[in-house]
């Protein structure tokens, strides 16, 4: 693994009174694509929100580029260079497509410019004046990914980007993720669909009851298939 960009150790997280994460520990190297696999309710989405600082309470350690982020608020964490594409996509209905795209402020240099994003997602250019939520599900997902590419964030947290989408769109998103990896982005991906995860990721962390129970490199996914099936209950 390359130099660790994100180091999460003994991360606990709460939604109000309910204690969801029980000591998540994992690392993501610079330039890697890592997935969090697990059943519904295992704590994958909560982990993403905890890294981003979006929970009511979190303890433990989240180090990014060697810097401790655990005491920071989510707007400060964004400025450190982490960006989230939430599970429900979070497209704003009262904003046009272009306003949605331009909403997240630049946190540092090095993000894609608007022209590059439009080349990547031509549909967004065509529909730039439409209301954000009038797009199809696939287009909304593209928009949710596209808008965090211009900010200069190095680490992208993509929460189930393929959920509920047609196979052809899923393929397109897979190609996009591979392209982003080549561009130098580091990605943490939450997935239910490990067939899809296997086509884009370097390593997989298996999450259960709010902590990591196993790590499987993508190369040995085939040989670990039975074990993984038991973990995921598929």
């Amino acid at each position: 693994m390359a130099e660790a960009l994100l180091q999460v150790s003994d991360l606990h997280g709460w939604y109000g009174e309910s204690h969801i994460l029980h000591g998540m520990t994992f690392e993501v190297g610079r330039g890697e694509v890592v997935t969090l696999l697990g059943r519904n309710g295992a704590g994958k989405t909560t982990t993403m929100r905890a890294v981003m600082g979006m929970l009511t309470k979190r303890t433990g350690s989240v180090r990014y580029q060697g810097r401790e982020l655990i005491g920071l608020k989510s707007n400060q964490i964004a400025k450190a260079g982490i960006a989230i594409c939430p599970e429900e996509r979070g497209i704003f209905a009262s904003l046009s497509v272009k306003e949605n795209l331009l909403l997240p402020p630049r946190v540092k240099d090095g993000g894609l410019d608007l022209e590059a994003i439009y080349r990547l997602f031509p549909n967004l250019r065509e529909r730039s004046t439409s209301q954000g939520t009038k797009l199809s599900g696939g287009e909304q997902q593209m928009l949710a990914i596209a808008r965090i590419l211009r900010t200069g964030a190095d680490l992208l947290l993509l929460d189930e980007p393929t959920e509920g989408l047609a196979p052809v769109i899923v393929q397109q998103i897979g190609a996009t993720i591979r392209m982003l990896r080549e561009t130098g982005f580091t990605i943490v991906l939450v997935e239910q669909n490990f067939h899809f995860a296997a086509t884009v990721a370097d390593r997989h962390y298996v999450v259960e009851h709010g902590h990591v129970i196993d790590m499987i490199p993508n190369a040995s996914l085939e040989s670990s298939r039975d074990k993984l099936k038991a973990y995921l209950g598929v």
Partner: protein
Amino acid sequence: MFELLGVPPQALMGQLLLGLINGAFYALLSLGLAVIFGLMNVINFTHGAQYMMGAFVAWMLLQYAGIPYWGALVLVPVIVGATGVVIERLLISRLYHLDHLYGLLLTFGLALIIEGLFRQQYGSSGLPYSNPIPGGQNLGFMFLPWYRGWVVGFSLAVCLVTWFTIERTKLGAYLRAATERPDLVQAFGINVPRMITLTYGVGVGLAALAGVLAAPIYTVNPTMGANLIIVVFAVVVIGGMGSILGSIVTGFGLGIVEGLTKVFWPEASATVIFVIMAIVLMVRPQGLFGTPR
């Protein structure tokens, strides 16, 4: 001169102008309420008291510092807006995790305290504030006092600038987005709590601005806000809670409706807005311009 349904045109136009003046205040006040409610989900019952404070601070600036109306027009929204910032930071911000009802009770209590303090200090008989642009123009069909024309034109301009800022600028995009998903907007790197504080300050500043505009027309009185705010809340409900365009259009529109009612059915003029409110609530509960929540 012609007569319309037996009403002389002077009376009709005079009431229309009065309606427009009232409408200007309804629009400015409900605009501030809409901005605050949209982002904060707080029904700001202190709004009437803050409007009254605007008029009083204008009076004090003139009385104690010799600052005339035009200076007050700039300074008062800033001063009263700053008190709003303090109130939001110290008090309202502690209630966001609770039910809306708590914000309503807090701001209602604050309104009573503020009005009580002013009544204690200045009595309830009212203080005069002289008209900065006396005189007017006879338009043939009616007499237009300059100051009233100024109030209508200026408040319309303020409404349009506010609408443009919220609907057409980057800052407005942050506000609209934070209204939907404050957590996500913050996770994109925007300091949402600070934005909320400033928004409350701006909303309160709009109320204070309306207060300055009102000072030369109505007497400066501790209860001037309490009387007006009830009608303004009806306007907000008719326009749709949190809708910017709704508060502007219904503010001016209902002022005119009220003015016309005074001409054709004077007895009903005090209740016509509430009758419309009841009908709107039955037919379209989210308000004319509101979206269902």
